[in-house]
């Protein structure tokens, strides 16, 4: 079962493993994000995670290889008491909410608070709003406004950042967004979290999240990878994901500056 560590083969880059845990309300798409990241795949009806699922994936940074050991946890409220078991020793956490469900952001905030208080100090937390594909503004990842299907309401919203928190009811059926990007982003900044909006379905921004996390892990807290074993399934997708991650990383710098532009809501 021992596998060949591709990182070691390609370059003498040091390889280190990072334990990452996914938390968030049920059915926000945690498992789908992982599946997208690990296998570049998407399943419409993914079985709910019982307890937790474990997957690994590597990404290659210029100076090192990061092997993510991903703990994908169950989202239902009552599984929350199991979570400490999974976020124990985690160096990174991905707290996911559903862009179309405001309560999921509240839950996400609870998780952030829990992590900040209970998880290992220095844990890197990323707040991720998933299901961007359900938002009419999903494709507007650049400056361009995707033409909102109805009226100028959305266009205005996009043009004027201040109007970003236009409530969902003013929006049309094509846009199920209920959590304004501004609101979540402001919260993320306040708590110094990484912040992304993603779509596991289209794959938009998914790799970026993991790359950003990889870049944010302080060098000092990186230990060399344990055992070097990775699940067989992850190998296949490895190179692709690493490449995507690489590209994403290149963009990262600019994006950091123009997050606002990214925001098409």
């Amino acid at each position, binding site marked *: 079962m021992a596998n060949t560590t591709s990182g070691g083969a390609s370059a003498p880059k040091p390889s280190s493993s990072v334990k990452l845990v996914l938390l968030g309300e049920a059915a926000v798409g945690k498992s789908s994000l992982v599946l997208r990241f690990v296998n570049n795949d998407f399943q419409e009806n993914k*079985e709910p*995670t019982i307890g937790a699922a*474990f997957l690994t994936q590597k990404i290659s940074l210029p100076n090192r290889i990061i092997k993510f050991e991903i703990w994908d946890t169950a989202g*239902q409220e*009552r599984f929350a*008491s*199991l979570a400490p078991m999974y976020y124990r020793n985690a160096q990174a956490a991905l707290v996911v909410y559903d862009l179309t469900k405001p309560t999921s952001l509240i839950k996400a905030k609870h998780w952030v608070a829990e992590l900040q208080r209970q998880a290992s100090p220095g844990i890197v937390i990323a707040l991720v709003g998933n299901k961007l594909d359900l938002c009419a503004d999903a494709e507007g990842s650049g400056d361009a406004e995707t033409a909102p299907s109805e009226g100028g309401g959305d266009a205005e919203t996009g043009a004027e950042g201040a109007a970003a928190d236009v409530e969902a009811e003013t929006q049309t059926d094509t846009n199920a967004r209920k959590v304004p990007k501004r609101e979540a982003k402001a919260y993320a900044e306040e708590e110094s979290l990484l912040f992304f909006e993603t779509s596991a379905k289209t794959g938009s921004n998914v790799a970026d999240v993991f790359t950003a996390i990889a870049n944010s892990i302080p060098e000092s807290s990186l230990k060399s990878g344990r*055992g070097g074993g990775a*699940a067989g399934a992850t190998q296949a997708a490895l190179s692709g994901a690493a490449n995507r991650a690489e590209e994403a990383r290149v963009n990262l710098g600019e994006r950091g500056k123009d997050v606002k532009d990214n925001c098409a809501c």
Partner: protein
Amino acid sequence: MFQFNTLVQKAQSLIDPSVAVLSPTTERNPSKSVLFRHQFRLPDSQSPLQEISAELFIPTTHTRSTETSLESNVNGTKYAGELHLSESFLCFSTQRTSFLPNSSFSASSSFTGQTHGTGPAGNGFTLPLCAIRRVERMKSQSHVFTLALTTWNGMLVRSSGKDTPTVPPQRLVIHLDGSQHACERFCDGLKKGLREGTKEVDRLRTVVSHCYSEYLLERLLGPCRGNEKEDTYRREPPDAGLGMLFRYPGDARKLRDRSKMRLWGEYFRENGRNATLVRQPTFHKLIRVGLPNRLRGEIWEISSGSLYIRMRSPNLYTETLSKHSGKDSLAIEEIEKDLNRSLPEYPGFQSEEGIGRLRRVLTAYSWINEEVGYCQAMNIVVAALLIYLSETQAFFVLSVLCDRLLPGYYSITMYGTLLDQKVFESLVEKTMPVLWDHLVKSDVQLSVVSLPWFLSLYINSMPLVFAFRVLDVFFLEGPKVLFQIGLAILRINGEELLDVSDDGSFISILKSYFARLDESAHPKSENEKLRAITRFQELMVVAFKEFAAVTHASVAEQRAKHKDAVLENIESFAKRTSIRNLGPESKKLAVKDLGAVYDRFYEILYERQAKDKAADDEEKWKERQKLRPKFLSVNPMVSQEDDNRPGRVGMGPSPSIMEYTDFRNFLAKTAKWAVSDSPASPVRADQRNSTQRQRRKSASAWNDSAEPADHDFMQRLFRHWDESKQGGLSLQNVVNGLARLKGTGDIMATISYFFSLFDDQGNGRVDREGILSMSEALLFLSRRGFEGTLTPSDSSNAVDQLASATEPNAKRDTTKLSTSERFLGSVSAFIRRCFEYADPDHPANQKEDSPTLTQVEQSVDRFAIGDEDADEDEEDDLLEFLETRGNSKRPFPQTAVSPVPVSSDPLRDATPSCSPPLTARPKVQASNSNSGSSHTQTRAASHNLALDPENPLHITLATFRMVILADELLEQFFESFFPQSFHLSDAPNLNAASSPASTLSGNLTTFSSLGTPVKNLMSGSSTDKEGFVHVGRAGGVVEPGSRGLRGVLDNIVNDGMRMAAEMRKRMDEAQHEYERNNNSHLGPRRDEEDEDDEFDEKAPARRDQDEDLLEGAEVASIKTMRSDTAATLQPDLMGGETKLGE
């Protein structure tokens, strides 16, 4: 052995077992009933009524003839065992057990040992009494009782009239093995039960008709019956799950489904089916090799016992659905999320049919057990069940799973899951120490791997076909199977697992193992037979052979061992989460305070719940006794497990709303003043003994803690905290309320809050009644801090601090007295000023008639319902009092000079700490000092009318603030005492209060340390917070009738006079003009007597109310205070009048 048994039987027969069983102690401690029910998988309504050693004889071939002479038939199987009778079941098991209360526990739990594949019920039968058609007593040699049972086997489903001779009646022969007496008793019980049972036959018929076995046997027997029944009996096969529509998983041929079916058909023919099935070794073997698809569901039902629950209430499922149709719930919302992701690879669940069934079963269960509701993983389990079971069947199997087989697994806290993970880990540690050490060393958490195995019963870990094989055994033998399988998985993969050291590799090894379960376990073996053994078969063998020592008992033992730790973990997590999620308001309180509030809140609710449950049990028991031995109408789904006692957050859903009674309790544990002063009756020295007993009683009624008071103020607080007006407080409400009171530390906020408590209309006004209520509340709140109470119900303070003191400490007394009286003075001043500065509701109503003073005096008189008997002169007290006061160093110099707590005249200068809203007042103040204006007149007029119901008046917040800030003591009261009187994490006083020693009335004879509070009040009011704790602790335990009390009264009077005089002087200076005006407007006074009448009309109601609110002596104490209030006011007024006279 035999002899021993007879001895036991004899001993048992001496004590009437039915009586013993009925005693409430066994009801409350139902471990034996529970064990009994678990062994035979009976509904919760059943309990062991009778038992007797017996021998079961099953003739092998009774297919041939109907009138076999059983005596002569020696071809058959004999089983020695125990025959049990419950309310509606007759059970026989070869697992020797005894569940009667007078047998030892070890005997009754013996079935929990190794069962050798038979399941806890062993060989034997579990016959519903209604399934027994006839019982005959057979002629037998000597004294042996022999019963021949004839069952309804196979006769219920076919149409009446034409009894087919092809179905031989099932007959069972039982030799009872006991004394004549015991046998007779047993038979009597059986007779009674059978009579009741006949009523149930119809229900049995319905249930049985859904069993596939009936259909199967009809088909098997069909050819013998001839064709004329074709139409009648060739009915549609009963629903045997989605598999009938969408195929069953696995390759039927590979699974040898057909031959299994045949074997089962034969077995049923010989040993009965569904309700009348007799368990023989073949039964257990047939289960081990895997059930055939169409019978799988039915056998699950029988071996799990869900069939018997379904028999109790066959329509529960449909009724539940229709009763709740259209309703919504959180559970339903959660269920909807998962419907499309439950075994999505099975075609049945890609169809609306399958999804619909899944939805209905999960929904129905969430209604029937709202505590569990819906837990992820249930969807997977139910989806799996639905492949083999009809909706109704799946519903009942699910309920058995959740209630009995997997207790706590799917509960809101999932404590069962966590607990079993701990148990599993400890079993691994015990059985595979090397692997365990390796896991620990490499920091691999086993439960992250194994948790899903248990939670979803291996269904989404293994390929479905194998998971169902595990389930087959699981339903028969119980939860220990999950452990055995889990251990076997680790054992088989042990070597590989030892080679890796991270979670990832660990998981992937097991994943690939599960994926290859169907492969040969020994692919390279020369031996063909060995090669044919699959990995799954190997797994089963390892599980049940190597880990045979894992029994129900060892699992139970481990569970008991780890239970507390697991629950504590969950609870601390729940607490942490809950506190963190309390919202921004809660941030005003310290975390440890929040923790204390949380603990206290739930402690109270649990006490309440436990009390309710105890009462409920009592009720149930009574009812049960009434109904016995009839059937119980108790909801068969309600589990009565031992474990289900309330009291722990970790165990599951908990009440979260605090009612007023609970709230009083909560306050009593939080604030000194909320503790009632009185036990049922006042404590007198001469009746100490009786009161002691009484007190103990009353204490136990409140769970050995201080009995809470009940007061208008507490009711107001409750109503005010109840933001959503739901008649109860959530933790959030309580925290918000406390945060507002305690969290701000801002006197203005506290004052506003206090005001708002009395602002009933929410219009910023407090009317006359409100003002009086306010002052009552002030007295109520302060009575422990500043004033001794006549009959304290808890004397902890006294015990703590003064247990040895037998003589009142004069010095302390006096200092204490000064505080009390000073506060009293402040309150009286408060009332007066409130009325003085009150605004009339209708300016038009203003009349300028009678002078204020008399009326105020009378208004105060309304409070003076008091006894002023204790008015002996105590001159030396007073002297000493003065002396002490002169000598003591106080932070407030003016107190040494004057007892009047007013540091500044409110009418002249605004209090320094005036807040913005108060600036609204300067107008008034200005007009006051500038005097003579119409404004003053207005006020004077309203003052006059203070108590005239014809002229409603009110004070506003601004007025209230001013009045409070005008008085130093009141200011201190709101600045520190009031907020600090809520003790959260720093609440030692009340723990002490509830300690048993503190209730010893002997301690009451001592005058408590009254000095401490005073000192603290003086010094600690603004600086030393701790001081006020002591105020609370030391507050007011006064022996009634003691010299000290008289001293208190005298001093109050005297000091009140002095204070009043002083105050009057100051007031006069400021109000010179005002008084003048007042004087000139005195005009024709109202007749005093008239006014008396007026008050009398109104007062009684109030008094009555008070009487209700305040018990016994507390009333007395308040009355006394009121009278004192009056007393203090009187000289004040007199002084005023004197002035006027001048």
